[in-house]
């Protein structure tokens, strides 16, 4: 090697060695010598790796074999014991005849790059873990609203298949939603928030708060949108409950005002009767007072029942005795108001399974309603409330009919809605709502037939045995006239 070449060879900013077929180092540059020491009489594997024999996969060996250049990545150790990652290139050195006499090996220190790579991989895996494990539903969508990536919660809840469209996965819809905040974010790059109701793979409905944010490529263009949904079902349920508690308080205050008015009236009549020594007036006032106290009692029971959402306590009940007992409590009360009362229980109607307290309070409520409907009816002279019991092989049927004021269509349709009352100041709008809830909790049905001015008939059908699957009755029907409070409610 001439002096100039020697100089170039020595000053190359990498480790250069020339090795013979035994991997013995026959020459090396300055950089090598500084880091790995003198090479005289030493072998590549000894110097670089402190091994007693050659490495299993050796690029120098490969170059000797096929005369071509080879590349590999190795971890080597310097004189002072520092580990260094190098990228190794080998090239053959040939004589005039073209025979390979030696191989030149060039190793470049890539430790810094290697460390950077490692850090990058670590942070990528951290982000991946974050993406996967974050407790909300994350998806990444393209401009066609196709889901290109989704985290574990998303995949588990929605059975997400990549390439499927967002609205298919979330809402089982065939068209995109209006408005679509993912589209909006694609258009203007703004972060958006929206509340949605979505359906999980198992059919469960879930209220979610959805956030969208743009994902930009290197050129700064929005290339994907990330959508993050948080389950807020519990918060919504709580809100619904709170709203209904608010409504309940309003409704109760209203009802109490009405009842106080009735009590005031009764007391006034009693006082006036005492002053004038008018026995009839005293009796009349006392009746009114007693009736209003009764109403306060049943109102308090309703409120308690509403506040305590319990499952039925099932027990076998002998239907005929049960209904006769209820009727006997009303006959006198009704007769005093000039209302005839009848109880027609089919002999041998048999037993049924139910919560005695709940079904009793439901039927009492219905009978009280019937008596009330007659009491306030000034159009007819004769009024009648009749209670019937009928047994079928699968169910028991209670029919409570009256000849009172009846209901128009609107009242009939809203009858089971929470806080709907046709009684003005006299009602809380709880009674029939709870009656409906009790029937549902027993897997039964309740329906109304009614005509304004003619009277109403309530038919309650309860299964004889506790049904295997019972629908959970939600308190969602908050507003009077809520969506599905039809007068016929035999769905189950």
């Amino acid at each position, binding site marked *: 090697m001439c002096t100039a070449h020697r100089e170039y060879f020595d000053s190359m900013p990498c480790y250069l060695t020339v090795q013979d077929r035994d991997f013995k180092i026959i020459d090396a540059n300055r950089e090598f010598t500084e880091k790995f020491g003198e090479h005289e009489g030493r072998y590549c594997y000894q110097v670089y790796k402190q091994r007693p024999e050659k490495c299993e996969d050796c690029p120098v060996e490969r170059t000797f074999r096929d005369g071509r250049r080879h590349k590999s990545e190795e971890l080597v150790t310097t004189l002072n014991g520092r580990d260094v990652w190098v990228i190794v290139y080998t090239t053959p050195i040939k004589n005039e005849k073209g025979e390979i006499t030696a191989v030149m090996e060039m190793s470049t220190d890539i430790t810094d790059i290697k460390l950077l790579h490692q850090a990058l991989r670590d942070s990528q895996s951290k982000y991946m873990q974050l993406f996967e494990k974050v407790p909300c539903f994350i998806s990444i969508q393209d401009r066609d609203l196709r889901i290109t990536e989704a985290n574990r919660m998303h995949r588990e809840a929605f059975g997400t298949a990549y390439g499927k469209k967002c609205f298919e996965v979330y809402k089982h819809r065939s068209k995109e939603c209006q408005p679509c905040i993912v589209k909006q974010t694609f258009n203007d790059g703004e972060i958006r928030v929206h509340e949605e109701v979505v359906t999980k793979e198992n059919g469960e409905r879930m209220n979610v708060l959805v956030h969208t944010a743009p994902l930009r490529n290197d050129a700064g263009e929005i290339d994907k949108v990330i959508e993050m949904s948080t389950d807020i079902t519990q918060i919504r349920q709580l809100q619904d409950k709170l709203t209904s508690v608010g409504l309940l308080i309003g409704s109760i205050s*209203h009802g109490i*005002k*009405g009842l*106080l*008015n*009735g*009590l*005031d*009236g*009764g007391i*006034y*009549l009693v006082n*006036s009767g005492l002053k004038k020594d008018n026995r009839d*007036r005293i009796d*009349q006032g006392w009746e*009114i007072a007693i*009736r*209003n106290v009764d109403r306060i009692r049943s109102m308090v029971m309703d409120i308690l029942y509403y506040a305590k959402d319990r499952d039925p306590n099932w027990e076998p009940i002998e239907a005929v005795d049960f209904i006769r007992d209820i009727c006997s409590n009303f006959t006198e009360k009704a007769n005093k108001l000039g209302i005839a009362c009848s109880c027609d229980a089919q002999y041998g109607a048999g037993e049924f399974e139910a919560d005695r307290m709940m079904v009793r309070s439901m039927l009492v409520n219905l009978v009280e309603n019937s008596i009330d409907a007659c*009491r*306030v009816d*000034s159009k007819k002279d004769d009024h009648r409330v009749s209670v019937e019991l009928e047994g079928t092989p699968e169910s028991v049927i209670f029919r409570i009919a009256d000849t009172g*004021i009846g209901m*128009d269509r609107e*009242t009939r349709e809203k009858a089971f809605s929470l806080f709907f009352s*046709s009684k*003005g*100041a*006299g009602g809380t709008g709880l009674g029939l709502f709870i009656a409906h809830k009790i029937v549902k909790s027993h897997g039964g049905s309740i329906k109304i037939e009614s005509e304004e001015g003619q009277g109403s008939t309530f038919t309650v059908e309860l299964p004889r045995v506790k049904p295997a699957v019972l629908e959970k009755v939600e308190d969602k029907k908050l507003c009077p006239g809520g969506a599905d409070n039809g007068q016929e409610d035999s769905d189950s």
Partner: protein
Amino acid sequence: MAKKILIVDDEPDMVTLLTTLLEDNGYETVSAYNGIEGMEKVQSDNPDLITLDITMDKETGIKMYRKLCQAGSQIPVIMVTGISDALGTFLGRYKDTTEPAGYFEKPIDNEALLAKIKELIG
């Protein structure tokens, strides 16, 4: 001659109370259970004053009151109601309706009601 008061309310207990209260205090009374019946009694009995409930099925008190205003009736009307909304404002939305002569929320303060009636018709 005793002044005649028409009581319109769909709640029989309320009618009983008002009838007794007013008769005890020297008034003559007639009663009706809804707005339609009420209008009939206005015609047939020519009352000096009307107490009118608002929430009644059939015809509400508001509807009956508007009818009275439209007919140019001069009979003072006292609204008696369980609804605690600002009723005057509500009725004020109608051009052809003036505010009622009196307005009482249930439960009624008997003495205040009697005082108001005395002020209106003596």
